[in-house]
């Protein structure tokens, strides 16, 4: 029995390796806010959400597989949360009643495993009931497969079979063990056997050649003897204890997988509900294969910013199909960084099968998302800032593959503009020539201008808007890079030098 709610053909690896740039992504895209909202205080949900968000899918098919399941969830939030309670309940009961297999001795391993199984069987019956009652409202292939599996595998006859085993494993009639002679004539291969039921007619029973039986009893006060018999019994039931304990473990891990995979959708529900409260739209993105060049959206807002401000924020639009390079220049505090973050966050959300914060969104998948942001001064004092930036870039290059997406934010500016521009130019040119998509926010006019002059058809130039009065709209428009970033405006604002303060 497989859950398969995150992949059509395999389990989700909650402890799988995350890409090496994970920490940088969390920091640069401020993902903590997103993850906190998805978790709603539940550390487990946070772990699941983090893992899913950061281990991006590259196959549009799988993304759509999750999108359809998530759509079912958005339509039936209560049923999904009730189902999610099954594995949660198993966990809580285990903790509350100290259930679990902790012993090293077969007899206690066996009895704890039997107890665990009894508890699981109850929950599995409950799951079966939920599926029977609400299954019809789910239409995604993922949920349909899962529900059909529950209906087929967990029928009444099966529950009866399990229960009869659980009864027999209490051994009211003693233990029958077969054994062989091992090294030094010591007994080995102790195997617990099911006694043969008497069968055949009385003639067969009388004439079948039966073995002689030798027996002895230990005296009531022979403690060593009693201990020896206990050990022998342990050897005998070792394998069956293992089999029962492993079965309990299998069901336990089935429920754990269910908790993880449903957990992802519950976390998505949490986010969707928050965004609905704020009044922000969500949309299922259209994923394209990694080798396509698509980046077109309307009303794309920065989800984390909306969550932080707790109100709707300015959205942007882009027609970036066929583009490998998007270079963003313009006014300071004009929304460039926010825009860049919204690109990154949307990419991650799309590639884990979620909705995105936009009216509509289409993009190609990337083989890896990377951020290269300018950082605070290196605290370790080991290397200069520019040296540090180049070091980080070099590390990113180690991991890059074609069709990756790299977001640069004010990179390589820790030197004079001329040098910085030249180094950045060489890096960016090399990346796009190697089939890597680049979004580059910069105030280095020389860098942006030189790319503009090249007249590349696969490059797009955006400018943060600034109205005549110096006011920002936080909207980005296509346009040729301009030689100043209007830093004066910001300076004036900070130092309150202008008497003509606009509203």
């Amino acid at each position, binding site marked *: 029995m497989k859950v398969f709610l995150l992949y059509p053909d395999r389990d989700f690896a909650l402890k799988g390796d995350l890409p090496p740039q994970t920490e940088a992504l969390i920091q640069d895209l401020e993902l903590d806010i997103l993850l906190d909202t998805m978790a709603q205080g539940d550390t487990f949900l946070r772990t699941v959400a983090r893992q899913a968000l950061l281990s991006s899918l590259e196959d549009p098919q799988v993304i759509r597989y999750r999108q359809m399941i998530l759509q079912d969830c958005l339509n039936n939030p209560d049923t999904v949360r009730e189902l999610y309670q099954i594995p949660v309940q198993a966990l809580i009961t285990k903790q509350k009643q100290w259930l679990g297999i902790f012993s*090293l001795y077969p007899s206690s391993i066996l009895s704890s495993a039997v107890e665990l199984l009894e508890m699981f069987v109850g929950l599995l019956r409950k799951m079966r009931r939920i599926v029977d009652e609400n299954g019809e409202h789910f239409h995604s292939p993922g949920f349909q497969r899962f529900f059909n599996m529950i209906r087929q595998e967990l029928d009444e006859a099966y529950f009866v079979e399990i229960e009869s085993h659980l009864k027999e494993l209490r051994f009211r009639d003693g233990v029958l*063990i077969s054994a062989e002679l091992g090294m030094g004539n*010591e007994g080995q291969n102790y195997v617990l056997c099911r006694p043969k039921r008497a069968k055949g007619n009385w003639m067969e029973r009388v004439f079948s050649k039966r073995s002689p039986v*030798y027996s*002895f009893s*230990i005296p009531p006060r022979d403690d060593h003897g009693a201990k020896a018999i206990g050990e022998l019994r342990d050897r005998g039931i070792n394998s*069956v204890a293992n089999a029962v304990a492993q079965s309990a473990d299998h*069901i336990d891990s089935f429920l754990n997988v269910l908790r993880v995979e449903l957990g992802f959708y519950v976390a998505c529900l949490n986010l969707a509900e928050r965004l609905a409260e704020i009044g922000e739209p969500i949309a299922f993105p259209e994923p394209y294969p990694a080798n396509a060049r698509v980046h077109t959206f309307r009303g794309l807002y920065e989800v984390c910013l909306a969550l932080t401000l707790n109100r709707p924020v300015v959205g942007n639009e882009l027609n970036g199909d066929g583009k490998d390079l998007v270079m963003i220049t313009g006014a300071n505090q004009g929304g460039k960084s926010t825009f860049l973050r919204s690109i990154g966050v949307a990419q991650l959300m799309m590639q884990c099968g979620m909705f995105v914060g936009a009216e509509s969104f289409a993009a190609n998948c990337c083989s890896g998302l990377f951020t290269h942001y300018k950082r605070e001064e290196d605290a370790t004092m080991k290397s200069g800032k520019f040296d540090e930036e180049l070091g980080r870039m070099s590390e990113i290059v180690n991991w890059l593959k074609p069709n990756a997406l790299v977001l640069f934010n004010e990179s390589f500016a820790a030197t004079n503009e001329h040098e910085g521009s030249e180094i950045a130019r060489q890096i960016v040119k090399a990346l796009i020539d190697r089939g890597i998509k680049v979004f580059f926010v910069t105030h280095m006019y020389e860098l942006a201008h030189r790319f503009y002059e090249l007249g590349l058809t696969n490059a797009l130039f955006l400018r943060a808007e600034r109205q005549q009065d110096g006011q920002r709209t936080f909207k980005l428009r296509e346009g040729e890079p301009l030689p100043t970033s209007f830093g004066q405006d910001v300076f004036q604002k900070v130092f309150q030098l202008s008497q003509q303060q606009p509203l």
Partner: protein
Amino acid sequence: MNFFSILWEQKEINEVTLQPEWFPDLNLDQVIQAITARKQEYNLKPLYYTPPNDLLTIRYRQEIARDLSDEGLIGALKAFAEQMVRVRRYLALSDKLDYRYHQEGWFLEAALVYGKAMVDLGEGMSSISLSSRGLLAFREFLHRYLHSQAFETFFAEAKKVKEALQRIRYCIILQNGTVRVRRYEGEVDYSIEVEKTFAKFKQGAVKDYHSDLSRSSGMNHVEAQILDFVARLYPEEFAALDRFYRRQQNFVDETIARFDREIQFYLAYLDFMAEIQRKGLSFCLPQVVAEKDIAAHQTFDLALAHTLRFEKQEIVPNDFYLRDSERVIIITGPNQGGKTTFARMFGQLHYLAKLGLPVPGREARLFLCDQIFTHFERQEDLRNLSGKLQDDLERIRHILDHATSNSILILNEVFSSTTFEDAVFLSKEILGKISDLDAYCVWVTFLDELSTFNEKTVSMVSTVKPDNAVERTYKIIRQPADGLAYAFSLAEKHRLTYRQIVGRIRS
């Protein structure tokens, strides 16, 4: 060709059980300890304390060591050794046991392992091309042994008895304090049924809940009683075991037992070597000569290499040669530069060569010395200076009284606690005597004067990196001792060399 020992071709020297007193000075005590540490049960140390004195035996051993570069052969011998360990363990166990069929059972196991060990070794060695007299003779011996009537009968019977016992399967029924035993009648394994029922939940690998109920062999009275019942259920099988036990009490051949111990002399050393070789260091079989013309290329201190075998730190190999009238190496240079290590290495090489073993280095031609003498400063000596000086001189006197022109002398910082003038005077006196003796000597000293004593002395110097005098190279090279190396290192440490001063003063 009659085989009796893999260490001695003809006459053997009685094993020396005490380590030579100069061993700790050369750190050979550590080396031998490391070599034998994992092989305690063989009592190998005496073998390393007892070097042969003739070139013939050295060559007999070197041939064997050369044959042992064959991985297949080593594998066969190691497998043999492991099996023999088990044979001894099982026999010892059997001796100690209380219940008859238990005791006979372990005796049978020992016999089976022994028989298989012999057959395996015969097969393992058969296809290997050998050229040493020792191993060829042993292989022939083993072949004859394997095909002897006695061995063949012994092994065939052991296997037959075991097979019969292995076919036995019985049932035990435990209920409260009662144990019933009967033959097995085709009952099915219950754990398989349980697994089948729950198979649909299988989620990939889970923990193994099999309890580790293994314990050192033994049998309690309940198990012994059960075994007795099993013997009653299967009387023929156990009668055969009885017969085997009575007939085959001394099945281990004496020559095999001796080979089993002595081959470890080589294997233990090869294991020890292998760990050091993994660091990229080489060993070679030296040419051992009776003439005074020696050289070694890329050699190193074995004890140091062993200590650092798992460390990143590199071992720096060194070269030396002494030809024509050269006899005495005078080593000077900065402290901590590898001088003492070099001196130890010189002694180690000659001792190991004499044992007939491979030595550190890519190539070596070494002298067959009669004895090794060392004089190292004794740290624990707390007597006053004059007392110490006298003690030093007495020890050197003792050495000179006993050394011959075929001996090797290793002197380390002698007279370091007397005045400079005294030290020069005394050292020159001693050096004169050593020179007259015509023995090989390595002398670590801070007295540059000794290095140009006469045509027999050769100067070697420990060196520092040209651009950073604080960093040692651990290279000891033939070079006049002019005291500059040490001065250079101090100057550089204080950043006062020409280049540094130029670099520090900018326009």
